[in-house]
Structures are given as C-alpha cells and as structure tokens.
C-alpha cells in the first residue's frame, strides 16, 4: 500500500520499552494510609457542556450507573466507576494546568464492585440518531487525548457514506504506551469496535495506522483482522516520526489527503478514531458497559513503569503507589513530554483524557536553558507538521497582536511542540500559542456576550416604544370619545353650555380658566374639561351600602366613629381630632 508523507515532525527519544515489559495491570483499589476507598469523578470530562449531576450525597450507586447527564448534545455523560455510596458532590481539584476546582462526585467504594444490569445495544435495530444518543449516554469520548464526544463524530460525510475510516494506533508521543498495550492484549475487542464504527459510518474501508516501532501491536492487530476475516480492513505500519499520531497527519500519511484550513476531514470522506475509542465503543455497544475505565501509562521517574487499567476517578497517588516514584520526583505530567500538562498535585483523579502519567525529575527533564531572542532561522517552520510559520505566530502572540496571529492560522496549530523542540533559542513557543489562543477565546466569548446584550437592549427598547405607543393609542381613543361626547352635548344644549362651562371652570380653579361668563361660543377646551369632570363625577360612585340607612345602623356608625376618635386621641394626644 502506498504511503504518503507529512512535512516537518521530529524524532525524539521514545523511552517506550520500559513500560511495555509487563502486561496491563488492573489498577489497585484506591486507598491511602488506611483511609477508606474514595473515587473522585469529575463531571466535566469532555469537550462541551458540563453534565448535570444526577446523584446527591448519601445516594448509593452501582458500577456503571449514570451520575452525570449530558448537557445538550455537545456533551457526554459520566458514570460511577464502582459501586458504593456518594459521599459528596463538591468542588475538587482537577487534573488541569490551572489547579482550579470543578464539580466532582465523590464515591466511597463498598468493595463489592456491583454492576448495573448490562444490556448489549443492538445498533442494527436502532436508528443512527438513537445509536448516537446511546453512545452519548454511555459517556464514550475520544480517548486519544482530545476527549471530543464520539457520538458527534459518528455521522457519515457527504452522501451518507464515508470512504475511509482511519483507526489511530500510531501513538507517537514518547513514554506513552497505553494504546500499544491495548492493541497487544485486546486486539479482538478493538476490531469489534472498528466493525461497529465501520457499520455506523457506512465506511468503504478501514485503515488501522500503527507506527512501525510497535511490531507486537502490529502483529496482534493483523492477526485479529485476519481472524475476523475482514477484507475491507488493513493494518498499516506507518513510519515512526512525531507527530504521526495527529489526526490530520495520520490521514495524510495513510490517504494522501491534506485537510485544508477550515475544513473537516469528513468533507473529504475520512474520519479518524483512536484505538482506545474503538475499544470503548465495543464495550459500550457489545457489552453494555459505559466508559468507566481506561488504560493509563505510568512512566518516567518510577521504579516500575507499567500500564494500568484504571477506573475513572482513581486518585493519582493510588495509581502511582504501585509503580513507586523515585525520591527525586518533582512533578507529575498528564500526557507526554511534548504535549503534556503539569499537574497541580497527586490527589487529582484519573479522567477520560489521562493517557499517561509521566513522573518527572530534574534528571529526566532538566530545566530548559534560558529563552533567547528569536533569530528567525526558520527551523520551527521546517519542523511544523501543520505547515504553519511558527516564528510569525510567535512574533504576533508575544506582542499580543492576536488578529495578525489568527491571520497566520494560529488555530490550525495542534500544539504538538515540534517547533519548541527544535528551537535553537529555546523559546517555549507552544506556551505563547496557548496564551494567544485562550486570549482570543476569551475575547470571542466577551464579544458574543456583548452581542447578546445588544440584542436584549434593542428588544427592550422596542418593547418600551411599543408599550408607550399602545398607551398613547388607548389615551387617544379615550380622549376622542370624550371629545365626541362633549361636542354632542354642545350641539344638543347650546343654551345650557355656557353655564356648564363656567361651572366647570370654577370647579377646577377660578384663576386658571380663560373662559369667562358671557362666552357666546364655548371653547372646545372648556367643553372637554366639563366632560372630564362629568366623567370623574360619574366614576365617584357612592358605596351602595351607605345610603338609606336605618336609625339603628346610623347609631351603630356613630358609636364606631366615637370609638375611633377616642382611640385616636389616646394614641396621639397632640394631634387634632379627625375632621
């Protein structure tokens, strides 16, 4: 099969052998210093909205029970990783570079590991939309590191058909071996997941790309494909070069298609999934198990580097205890040395994005030499696998000229770190891009909020104008009615009109009326005032029960009034008596 090539990339030292010597171990039960076993399951584990918690403190949950419901379609559900009791739904520190907290469900494990009733999902009997909803509620997300909700990716491209389904087993970043071990040990299950994906996407063929530094994984996957007798699947060894495992890079290597700026790979009939995701889909659909565990590599400065099948929510210290970090450990990195993020501490839980816990030490990762000025040598541009000009991005990001940085396609940067790796001036280029990207995102959300506020404000003004108009219309209608009545009165009784006007005038205030007694033709204003007074008088209805009183009732009223007057004088002796 013809392979293609992507520009740039680097070949760092891989350090993968150490953690591939022993098979995947089941993660130890969480415990520390004889304390009870707690799992901390963050609700927000995927791209998109934060799921709503479905449980509260004191609830008993079973393994695989949904504890967080997806918030809209751009979100993914979260499940209890073991059976036990919910201790709290509270803010806990997250495996995030900020070290900030987010809402987590804390479960005290009862050690029984009791499953919910597991029902395989027959996707042939359901519509595509139902299958997508099922996967969303099973919490399946991309396990390559981006944690993009998988159900959103399961829609065939143009024409309801996909040419090529790509399964990403390249795993190009140093130290990380979780996909390698998964492929070696659970190849059959992965292939079953690929079959589901192929059916759902109506894909013409499936290519499984694996870097050629993983011969055992290649052999296992090839054997699994042959055992299943899948003619439309092929396991392809791709050259080992970082970042061959990037989605766009792998698509380019396997199919030669270069997905341009602003386009999706599905526009070109290609979709890419990680092997871990395929495995999770198999578990969700064929076994009815939601995504509650994943393979995590523990490597770096540890005595026994190894892969663990860890429950989501396992605190890192429990996971690390078995691998015994060496005494000079100074940091924990989630992910690999190129793209990983430094973690705030060892109490944070394993999440769906945790593919590797890299234990660092000054010996393993010496502090970088001081940053020097950019000399515009262009090494970064040569190394960039996204074909960008990193030195230009750096120039504008550093000077906070974000518009220009975007013109140079900052958002096509995959933050792979190749540019920083080759930079002879040791500039932390990716840090600048991350800074610029988050500033731009913040600006855009501010802009969206401002637009919303403008819309609201304009609507309010519109509404106020409409209300004022309606009020004016009502008033005008009433005035017109009054005017008509007054004109009628004038026409019918011309003799009594002057008298009525003068009476009205004196009733309002004698000084303010321009109309005086011998007015031959009463002015319309005067007539209007008269009409208004007439209306007012008509509205002052005497209460019906105050007329035609019997003497007994009058006596009763007098008694009441007297009592009131007495009370008033007692309460306020200085006040004059009423009336």
């Amino acid at each position, binding site marked *: 099969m013809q392979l293609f090539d992507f520009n740039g990339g680097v070949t760092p030292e891989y350090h993968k052998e150490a953690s591939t010597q022993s098979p995947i171990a089941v993660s130890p039960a969480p415990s520390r210093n004889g304390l009870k076993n707690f799992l901390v399951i963050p609700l927000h584990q995927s791209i998109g909205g934060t799921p709503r918690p479905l449980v509260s403190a004191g609830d008993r949950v079973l393994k695989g029970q949904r504890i967080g419901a997806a918030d809209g379609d751009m979100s993914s559900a979260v499940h209890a990783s073991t059976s036990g009791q919910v201790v709290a739904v509270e803010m806990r520190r997250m495996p995030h570079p*900020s070290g900030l907290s987010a809402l987590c469900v804390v479960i005290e494990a009862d050690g029984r590991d009791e499953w919910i009733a597991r029902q395989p999902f027959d996707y042939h009997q359901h519509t595509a939309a139902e299958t997508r909803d099922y996967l969303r509620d099973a919490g399946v997300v991309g396990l390559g590191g981006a944690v993009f909700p998988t159900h959103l990716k399961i829609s065939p491209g143009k024409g309801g058909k996909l040419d090529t389904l790509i399964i990403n087993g390249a795993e190009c970043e140093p130290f990380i071996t979780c996909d390698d071990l998964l492929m070696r040990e659970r190849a059959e299950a992965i292939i079953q997941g690929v079959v589901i994906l192929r059916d759902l996407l109506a894909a013409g063929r499936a290519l499984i790309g694996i870097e050629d530094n993983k011969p055992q994984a290649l052999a296992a996957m090839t054997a699994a494909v042959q055992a299943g007798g899948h003619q439309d699947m092929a396991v392809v060894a791709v050259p080992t070069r970082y970042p061959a495992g990037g989605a766009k890079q792998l698509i380019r290597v396997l199919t030669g298609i270069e997905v341009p700026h602003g386009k999706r790979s599905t526009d070109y009939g290609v979709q890419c999934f990680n092997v871990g995701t395929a495995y999770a889909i198999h578990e969700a659909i064929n076994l009815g198990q939601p995504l509650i565990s994943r393979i995590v590599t523990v490597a770096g400065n540890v005595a026994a580097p190894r892969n663990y099948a860890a429950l989501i929510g396992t605190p890192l210290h429990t996971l690390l205890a078995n691998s015994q970090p060496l005494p000079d450990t100074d940091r924990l990195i989630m992910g690999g040395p190129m793209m990983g993020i430094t973690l705030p501490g060892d109490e944070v839980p394993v999440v769906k994005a945790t593919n590797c816990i890299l234990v660092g030490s000054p010996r393993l990762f010496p502090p970088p030499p001081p*940053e020097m000025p950019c000399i515009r040598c262009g090494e970064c541009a040569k190394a960039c696998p996204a074909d960008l000009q990193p030195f230009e991005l750096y120039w504008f990001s550093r000077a906070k000229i974000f518009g220009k940085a975007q013109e140079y396609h900052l958002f096509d940067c995959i933050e792979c770190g190749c540019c920083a790796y080759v930079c002879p001036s040791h500039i932390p280029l990716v840090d600048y891009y991350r*800074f610029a990207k988050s*500033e731009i995102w913040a600006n855009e959300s501010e802009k969206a909020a401002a637009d919303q*506020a403008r819309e609201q*404000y304009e609507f309010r003004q519109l509404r106020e104008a409409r209300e004022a108009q309606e009020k004016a219309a009502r008033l005008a209608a009433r005035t017109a009615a009054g005017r008509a009545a007054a004109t009628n009165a004038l026409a019918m009784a011309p003799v009594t009109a002057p008298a009525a006007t003068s009476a009205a005038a004196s009733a309002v205030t004698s000084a303010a009326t321009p109309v005086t007694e011998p007015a031959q033709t009463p002015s319309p204003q005067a007539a209007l005032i008269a009409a208004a007074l007439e209306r007012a008088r008509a509205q002052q209805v005497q209460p019906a029960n105050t007329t035609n009183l019997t003497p007994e009732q009058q006596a009763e009223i007098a008694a009441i009034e007297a009592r009131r007057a007495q009370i008033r004088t007692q309460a306020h002796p200085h006040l004059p008596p009423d009336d």
Partner: protein
Amino acid sequence: MLAALLVMALGAVVLGAALGFAAVKFRVEGDPLTEKIDAILPQTQCGQCGYPGCKPYAAAMAKGEADINQCPPGGDEGIRKLADLLGREYKPLSAEHGVEKPKALAVIDEQRCIGCTLCIQACPVDAIVGAAKQMHTVIAAQCTGCELCVPVCPVDCIDMVPVAENITTWKWKYPVVAIKPVTTQ
C-alpha cells in the same frame, strides 16, 4: 491684470460648479460608522459615559462630539480599539466617568427582596425576572454587570459579585521566563 482676474474668476466658477454638482451627487446618508463603533463597545448599557446607552455614545463618537475614553466597562483595551478604529490618539480612561472594575454580576439577596420591581424596570437588558410582590432573581447569563439595578433597590438587596475564574474561563498565562540567580559551584 484684468486677464489675471478673469482667469481666476473663470477657474473659481468652473470648479465651484463641479464641486456643487459633486456635493449633490455624492450626498452621504446614514452613518455606517456608528455601527462599527457600537460593535467595539461592551454593550453593558450602563450609561457611565454620560449617554443613555452604548449606541448613543457610539453615535456621539462618530460625530466627533464624544471622546473615546468615557467607557469604564470597555476599559483600556476598548479605548485602544476605538483609537485604532477612529485613527485617534490613545488616552487613558477619564476619571470622571468611572474606573475599570473586574466583571461582576448582580446577585439579589432573595431573603431581603420585597418584590418592588424597581430593579426590573432599571435593567437595560431584561436580565431580572420577577413580578410585583414576588421574589426577583437575576439571570446570570444575561447580566452585563452595569450596576444600574443597585441604586434603585429600596432595601439594598442587590450585590455586585465579581466573576470568579473557573476551569472553562481559565486562561493560559503569558509565558514568563523565570529569572534565577546564577550560582557558582
């Protein structure tokens, strides 16, 4: 001498006629500039600039009646953007119109709210829901933090609570090179 006068007079007549024609032909109607300025303003509708809303302030700026440094919620960055758009010189926020504050949201203390609806009438973006003699509450997603509801509340039950940073709004910091003392070994 006469010839010179005639020539100049002729020139003046011809050019004047041409300009007069052009002034009629190319008359400008409407003001699309206001829209562009309005797009930069933060739309809090707080009135701190001295105009009844963001749009009137934008219109005043477009006409050159208002200065660009009268919008505290827009802050320093907003002024820079306006200076850039209008080709004017940057100047710091004018003190008489207020100071730039971190974004805050109005929060109604529901125990103290008496349901007077005064804040509902004051809110320029309809971000407060409630009815007469019913408890009111603020829709956080729509609140612009303009503070217009705070002074009208007769029982002082509205507080401006600064927005705290969370995982989704957290921003990567500007890379700073750590300076370490040189140690001789």
